């Protein structure tokens, strides 16, 4: 009996001729060795097909801007958008949040300074937004 070989992959891929399909069906029903071969090839095929489809990295494919009557313009937007998003995220992470101002504490500090140094002028406090208080 001639065992099956290359035709097994073609059989699994739907690339075998009708005669070959009949031959594989008939042979594998009688031959344990070729049934095992078919299963092994099928496992390898399934393994590669199970690999996840990866998304394209940002910026690799152009985004086209089209407007009626205007020349087609291609913008490599992905990279620019990614860079901008990165900057915004970094700024949000690394910029410390402003601490709340405790006015009663400020008032105590001003009073204490005036008591220790009566000659000192009024203390100017610059608040966020450019407001100046005394």
């Amino acid at each position: 009996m001639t065992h099956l070989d290359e035709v097994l992959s073609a059989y699994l891929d739907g690339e075998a001729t009708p005669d070959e399909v009949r031959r594989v069906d008939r042979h594998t029903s009688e031959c344990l060795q070729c049934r095992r071969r078919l299963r092994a090839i099928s496992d390898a095929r399934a393994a590669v097909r199970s690999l996840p489809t990866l998304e394209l990295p940002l910026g690799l494919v152009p985004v086209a801007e089209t407007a009626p009557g205007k020349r087609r313009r291609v913008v490599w937007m992905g990279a620019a958008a990614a860079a901008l998003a990165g900057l915004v995220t970094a700024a949000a992470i690394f910029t410390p949040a402003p601490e709340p101002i405790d006015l009663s504490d400020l008032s105590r500090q001003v009073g204490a300074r005036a008591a220790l140094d009566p000659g000192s002028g009024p203390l100017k406090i610059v608040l966020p937004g450019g407001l100046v208080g005394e």
Partner: protein
Amino acid sequence: MSDRPLTWEDVARTHGRKIYNFAYRLCGDPHDAADLVQEVLLRVQKGLDAYQPGSFDGWLWRITHNAFIDEVRRRQRRPTSPLPEAIDRWDAQTAPGADEQLAASRLGDEIQAALMELPYEFREAVVMCDVVGLSYEEIAEAVAVPVGTVRSRIHRGRKLLRGALSGEAAV
């Protein structure tokens, strides 16, 4: 359907992901894969004027095959760097359901490593068939070999792959 001529941007948007996946599974490196996609798109841009309506997939994958072969030859003239960690592993370790994702990622890494062990011609045929989904006829056109050769390469590639994944000799 629009009569507007096909542009390379159209090709990039409709086929970019497939080319990237083909390239990644062939070379195992995200940066090299991205470089190959750009090279293919550049060649598409240059070649579209001369493209005759026909088997677009055959034309596109022949360009992709040639670009990869050129890159392989270029690499043979200079030392190569080791393969980096898979890019999706970090995500798998930190995302919800991390155990399952990590297991899937490890399995994917094993399959990818087994693919990388295959001779280039076998790996390319297997990836074109099982990752890209091309028919034997389309692969034969892209690689410029007879269909019988494609059939043989795919089968021998799968046998080696099976052996590598199971730790047994090829069936």
